[in-house]
């Protein structure tokens, strides 16, 4: 009887634990860019208009490389929008860079997930190459001085971004 009860308790605790896990955070990575000035991020936005990293100097910029064919990017997209929206007046800008994708698919993706931040196209993958991105989603946090302060590999979420940016601002 005791054995059955204790096994029962362990199994229920185990199940409750697993049921409350969130999909894994992005991994904070050591990229060779850390501490160096960020490569330029500039280009045409998906909805028209242009973006340039230089004009954001003085703000923290979160640069997220994504693609419409990338599964974890779907998981991440609403989180990025949430984060972008809550931080929009707090000196943090979010910009996406389309990685290895067509304009039509990327536009469809952004429309489907209701992106609340601009994304620019990257013809020839030049920006991705300069940042050393080899698989989306990859996110870089650029500090107010224009240097790369953090690299996140894999899908991130609003909570993790807030924590990372808070550390960058210290």
């Amino acid at each position, binding site marked *: 009887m005791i054995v059955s009860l204790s096994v029962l308790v362990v199994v229920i605790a185990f199940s409750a634990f697993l049921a409350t896990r969130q999909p894994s955070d992005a*991994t*904070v*990575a*050591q990229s060779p860019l850390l501490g160096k000035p960020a490569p330029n991020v500039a280009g045409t936005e998906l909805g028209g208009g242009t973006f340039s990293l230089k004009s954001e100097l003085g703000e923290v910029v979160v640069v997220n490389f994504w693609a419409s064919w990338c599964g974890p990017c779907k998981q991440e997209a609403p989180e990025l929008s949430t984060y972008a929206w809550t931080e929009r007046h707090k000196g943090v800008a979010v910009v996406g860079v389309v990685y290895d994708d067509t304009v039509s698919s990327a536009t469809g993706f952004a429309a489907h997930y209701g992106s609340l931040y601009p994304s620019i196209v990257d013809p020839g993958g030049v920006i991705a190459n300069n940042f050393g991105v*080899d698989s989306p989603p990859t996110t870089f946090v650029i500090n107010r001085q224009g240097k790369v302060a953090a690299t996140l590999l894999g899908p991130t979420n609003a909570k993790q971004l807030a924590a990372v940016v808070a550390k960058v601002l210290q």
Partner: protein
Amino acid sequence: MNIVKSFRLWCLAFLCVLAVALVAAPSTASAQGRIAHLETLVKCPACDDLSVAQSNATSALAVREDITRRVKAGESDNKILTSLEATYGTSILLSPATSGVGSLLWLVPILVLVALVVAGVRLVRRR
């Protein structure tokens, strides 16, 4: 044949072979052996679960060079692993440190083994 039939003779032969095998065993303390061993303990930074020994990604090669350099500089295994952990974070080691929560990884299997052996013995004892 009585030679084959004798259990004692076989035990003697076994002990001889064991002795020979232990003496002839290659040493793992050499620099090469240490490097190879350490490389199996460190994860390739860009991969999910491959060690730097198994992956040829650029980041893995960089870590391998780092390990080789440190072993040749005479650093101890522990120091090398700790400094890699400091650079890349705790997830770079393929087997977590045994302190704190990590001790569970070794305690639980032992406890489970004991519990199962007890269950097995109870099965025998019951009449």
